[in-house]
Structures are given as C-alpha cells and as structure tokens.
C-alpha cells in the first residue's frame, strides 16, 4: 500500500460511517447514498494531500455534501427533498424486533426532517447526528459560523410546529 493510500486509510476511512449516514439522511435513498459516498471517497482521495489531520471529518463531509448536491442536480431535482421522493429508511438492525422498531423511528424522523428546507436540514443533521461544533459545520457547508447559528435556530423553530403532531 503506498503512503498516500495508507494515510487515507488511517485518517479518512474511519469517517466512512459518518459519510454514509450523512449521504443517506440527505438523499433519503440507499442507492443514491451508495453512489454519493463512493464518488465522495474517490474525490477525497484525489484531493487528500495537505489536509489538516484535525479537520479531516468536516473536510470529508463537505465533499459528501457537494456530491449529494451534484447528484441531486444530475437527477433533475433542484429541491432534492420533497414529498414525492419519500422512501423508507429500512436498514439492518441488531435483531428483527428492534429492527422493525428502529425502522419506524427512522421513518418518523425522516418524514419530519423532510419538511425542513435542505439548508436547514443539513446543519441539524451535522449538529445532532455528527455532533460537530459550529466551526466544523461552518467548514463543512462553506458558510460563516453566524450562518450556522441562525440556521440551527430556525431549523429548531420550524420543527416546533411539526414535532408534536
């Protein structure tokens, strides 16, 4: 294994689950998520030289997010999240019983998050699922920290309307 491949393995590939989870929640589709993550990992590998070790995760998730947007544009969907494209988020769980429960929890969450505009969804996903700081999120979405702060506040404000329906 050459050294670039080895350092990519050690520094970037540990974030593969985060990349996949983000792609899956953004695209709401297992097949799209596969394509997005594969494309993102190859793009990341080609651009890997000189990335700061401590910012690998936001850097990688920024690429995943851009691949998702490119993918959505190619698929002719400028608003990738809309109710016509609601698909189930069924997934392998630890056992069939909790799998069914998990799948229904995920579906409910997916349906609620789907009502948020994409710009607000993505900051909420990065914050709550990836537990990233405002600075890391700012890096991942290429916007100032103040924008991250206001989008999160508005995302939560919007969810207030739907949460207890």
């Amino acid at each position, binding site marked *: 294994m050459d050294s670039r491949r080895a350092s990519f393995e050690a520094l970037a590939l540990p974030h593969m689950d985060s990349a996949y989870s983000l792609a899956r929640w953004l695209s709401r589709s297992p097949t799209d998520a596969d394509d997005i993550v594969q494309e993102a990992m190859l793009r990341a590998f080609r651009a890997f030289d000189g990335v700061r070790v401590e910012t690998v995760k936001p850097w990688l998730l920024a690429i995943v997010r851009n691949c998702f947007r490119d993918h959505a544009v190619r698929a002719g969907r400028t608003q990738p999240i809309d109710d016509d494209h609601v698909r189930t988020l069924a997934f392998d769980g630890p056992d069939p019983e909790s799998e069914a429960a998990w799948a229904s929890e995920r579906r409910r969450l997916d349906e609620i998050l789907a009502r948020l505009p994409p710009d607000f969804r993505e900051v909420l996903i990065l914050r709550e699922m990836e537990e990233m700081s405002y600075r890391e999120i700012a890096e991942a979405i290429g916007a100032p920290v103040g924008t991250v702060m206001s989008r999160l506040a*508005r995302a939560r404000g919007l969810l*207030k309307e739907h949460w207890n329906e």
Partner: protein
Amino acid sequence: MSDAPVPNADSPCPEIELTSAFLDGELTEADAAGAEAHIAACAECQAFVAVAADVSEAMRRPSARLKAPPLLRARIRRRLDSEASVRPARAGFLWGALSGAGVSAAAAAFIAVLMLPPAPESLAGAVTDAHIHALSAGRTIEVVSSSHHTVKPWFAGRAPLSPPVAEFAAQGFPLVGGRVDRVLGQKAAVVVYGHGKHEIDLFVWADRGAALPASGVRLGYHTVFWKNADLDFAAVSDVAPDELSQFVRLVQAEPE
C-alpha cells in the same frame, strides 16, 4: 444558498439564536449565563428548548445512526487501491520513465524539473526537507542518549529554547537523542525518538506568531504540526500515520 424564503414567524423572540447556541454549548460563559437567565423568564424560549431537546434526543438515538454497508466499504477500498496503483509514488514513476528508451529531450527536461527537490517555500516543506537532509547526511543525532537528563541540558546554549524532552520507551517510542537544525533559517531543537526501525524527529522552535501549515504527507513523510504555549512543534517520520498520531498524543499529554 439564501436563508430568505423561510419566515421566522413562529420564533419572534429576538433571543432565540442565543437560546439555540446556548443549548449547543457554543456560548462564552458570560453569554451562557445571560441566556440561561433569559430562558428562565421567557415562555417561548422554554417551549423552544423543550422541542429542541426532543429533536436532539431522537436524532442521537442509535436507531438514527446509519452504518456504511460492508459491500460498499469493500467496493470503495477496491476503487481506492486501483486508483493508488495507477498513480504510483512520483519518484519511482519518473525514474521508470527516465530509464525508458524513447524519452524525448523535452520530456527529459520536463522530468528533470519535476525531480528537483521542492523549494522550501513553506514551513511544511522546510521541516520535511530538514528531516530528509539530516537522514541522508547520516547526522540526525548530535547527542546520543536515552535519558532526558542528558538530552535536555545538552540543548542549553545550543538552541534558543529549551524543548520538552520525555522518555516514552515504555510506550514504544524510546528517546534516542537530539540535534540542532534550521527550519527556514530559524534555529530549532530536534528531539529524536525511535519506533521500531523508524525514526521520529520532533522539531521545536519559538512560535513566530504565524499559522502552522496543514498536517499531512509530503514525499512519503508524515508531518503533524501543533502549538503549545510559545512553542511550535512538528513531528516528522515515515512511521504509519496512526503511529505518528499516537506519538503526538504522548508528547501533547506530557506536562511542561
């Protein structure tokens, strides 16, 4: 992307952004105290906090985390391997091309330019160069010792700073010695550690207030930069990157 189209009508409290940032632990202590006092008095922010907490709880459940399927992982690793093998290490590829029979003069000149060592225009390049230069000249160590009682005093009067020197033999990184080197014209203390058959150079120099370059890999050597107090640090080695990270964590955990 514009934030304009979504009305903010359901959150008219002007403090809502501070309340939200407070929940994320993103406020300074003083601002956090102010936000907390505001929430205690504002019914609207209290309702906001209740929903935000529910949302957070739901989104952090293990059921929400999705893992990359093993087949996808395997496919990506295979693609990366083939990508890496069609782009071999630069030097090897170029030497191969040079030894080929039909290399034109222009191509040879082009290759010769690429083969020149990179100008140390950046700190990153300079540190890697200093490391490689010391290795190839066989003079990475001017004082040989596995005891910090010998290495640390040796720097006094030789380097313009006293670098932290510790013994990590038990963790697999024995102290080997030290030298004084130059990085972009500035004197640096270099504490040398071993790891198996590899060597790790820990460069330490006085902080010049400049931002440090990206940690990463150059010419096959991994470099990690960080600052501590008024000193700048760079660890350079050809050990595996996770081993270098382990070493860096040890150094950073040393009190001094």
